[in-house]
């Protein structure tokens, strides 16, 4: 048995004339927690539904374990799915909801009871087994949906934005529970979300999708520290990265100097392996947490809004050239509203992108 959990080979999907998935290759190892993340309409849910078998695959191959399941019925793929709407059967009790697949398979009563109670124990649902879904809270319904998946003991768990119908507090709690559940079960899990915080906190491996392609995949911190294009750089990290147009003015051995278009008296010295000709337009990306207020020279930002979270504050403002800037500060009550602040980036934390959005290293 190989250690492949799920593998996609040049998978494509089109709805009549619209191409939704334009060629996706990926490999998820057995037992990994993979997260598909991207803005709405990027095809992440479609891709998940293709793995589940709820959508046909237009081209390419889908493998689960060593089996090619591209044309296999959803029920025979060894996957279980947790839907955003939970998709609980409203006319059945919690017990029957969780026992549904076993009942269909005509398993012996004792086995059904044992498996359902086991799953209910894991999810702390033992008290709720006789209730109908309508009598449960959102978080409990979510757990029943997960329980229904656990009972089937699938090779792969699929989650389609499972937490987006929960309130913020419950979402954080369920996120932790999911992470613990993954550790306990050790099964391969694929999780779709548009929330990059969920992606960062849960994933062993993140796949950032946009426009029907995987933009980049890797461990959460790898994507954060080394994004391969402007889209990924902007999507991963919260608040998102600042982008400034700049022009290369000089280059030296392994370094280049770029001048901000919006504030021509400010330029940065950046370590680069690619040699860019002076005059090349580039985009500089700097994360809010890597901008520091300085006393001397720097980028002059007029602060208009402060988001104060207590532990940290996000100062929103604009450069002289009109470009929006966010920078992070520790603590609160800085009283920067309406003032002009001078900030400087940590120069080893500046990312350079071509104007087309590709990363230049």
């Amino acid at each position, binding site marked *: 048995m190989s250690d492949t959990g799920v593998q996609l080979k040049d998978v494509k999907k089109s709805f009549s004339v619209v191409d939704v998935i334009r060629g996706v290759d990926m490999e998820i190892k057995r037992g990994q927690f993979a997260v598909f993340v991207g803005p709405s309409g990027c095809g992440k849910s479609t891709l998940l539904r293709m793995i*589940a*078998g*709820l959508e046909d695959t237009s081209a390419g191959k889908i493998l689960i374990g060593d089996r090619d399941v591209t044309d296999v*019925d*959803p*029920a*025979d793929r060894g*996957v*279980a*799915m947790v*839907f955003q*709407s939970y*998709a609980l*059967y*409203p*006319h059945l009790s919690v017990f029957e909801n969780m026992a*549904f*697949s076993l009942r*269909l*398979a005509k398993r012996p009563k004792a086995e059904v009871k044992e498996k359902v109670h086991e799953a209910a124990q894991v999810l702390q649902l033992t008290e709720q087994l006789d209730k109908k879904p309508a009598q449960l809270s959102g978080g409990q319904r979510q757990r029943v949906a997960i329980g*229904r998946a656990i009972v*089937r003991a699938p090779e792969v768990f699929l989650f389609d934005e499972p937490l987006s119908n929960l309130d913020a507090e419950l979402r954080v709690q369920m996120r932790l529970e999911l992470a613990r559940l993954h550790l306990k079960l050790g099964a391969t899990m694929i999780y779709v979300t548009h929330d990059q915080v969920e992606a960062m906190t849960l994933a062993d491996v993140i796949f950032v999708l946009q426009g029907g392609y995987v933009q980049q995949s890797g461990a959460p911190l790898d994507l954060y520290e080394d994004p391969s294009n402007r889209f990924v750089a902007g999507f991963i990290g919260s608040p998102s990265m600042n982008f400034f147009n700049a022009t290369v003015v000089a280059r030296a051995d392994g370094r280049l100097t770029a001048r901000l278009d919006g504030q021509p008296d400010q330029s940065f010295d950046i370590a680069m392996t690619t040699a860019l000709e002076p005059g090349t337009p580039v985009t500089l990306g700097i994360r809010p947490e890597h901008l520091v207020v300085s006393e001397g020279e720097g980028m002059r930002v007029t602060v208009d809004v402060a988001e104060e979270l207590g532990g940290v504050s996000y100062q929103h403002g604009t450069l002289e050239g009109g470009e929006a800037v966010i920078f992070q500060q520790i603590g609160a009550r800085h009283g920067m509203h309406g003032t002009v602040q001078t900030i400087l980036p940590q120069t080893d934390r500046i990312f350079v992108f071509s104007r087309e959005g590709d990363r230049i290293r």
Partner: protein
Amino acid sequence: MSTAKRRRRELRNAALMVGPFVLILLIFFLYPTYKVIALSFTDAPLIGEGEWIGLANYAKLLNDKLFYTSIWNNFYFVLLTVIPTTVIALLIALAVSKLKGRMQALILTLFFLPYVLPVSVVTLIWAWMLDFQFGILQPLIEAVTGKSVPVFKNPHWVMPMIAVVTIWWTNGFNVLLMIAGLRNIPTDLYEAAALDGATAWQRFWRVTWPLLWPVTALVLTLQLILQLKLFDQVYLLSKGGPFNSSYVVLMQMYREAFQLNNGGYASAIAMVLFLIIVIVSVLQFQLLRIGGRRK
């Protein structure tokens, strides 16, 4: 403005809006209802006052053989229509809901079309189609039975044929209710069931059927009430014949009231039918609800 004043104004507005309806209800519904109840205890003709005779009309009814024939025919007709039309509507709704977009709208319209026809036109069409001599359906009947049948003049054929006509006529509405019910079932549930390993039949039996049950129960109850009130089709197609084999309670009431001028007796018949409909439909609805809860 004070609370009391505002409340008074709200009350006035409410009274103004409800008033016309209450007035019409009183004049055209409650008063006639009261009159029917009152009439049923008298020997009054259709027009004019009668003498109070207590329960004599009801006593007479209990000894009226034709009344028992009529009741029997009513329930026979209910048996022939209510469950068949519900099953047919469900099957059509399931098939139509598989279609998409305009095609679905088109087919749905086709099934609904007979429902917009007035009963006189419906019966005329079917009387022609089933005509003993030149009806276009007679060859079909001949193929099955070996000879032409004057269906509305044959005691065995008349009720089933009226049932067929009625189902054809009213089925579209039931299909519409069923489609609405089917659309209310989220597709997620079918997807979840498919992932759980349910076959098409299991998906129907374990998801569609229980979730559609409230609509099915509604259709069954509406149909029961509607079909117990059977009159027009019988009156227009067979006049209750042959040999009273299609005589129904409302036919008898009509004859007593408007042909024999026995207003009091006809009122008593109407009251009894009313009671039967109330009892049977309440009973059925309760039974269906219990059945639904057990699922």
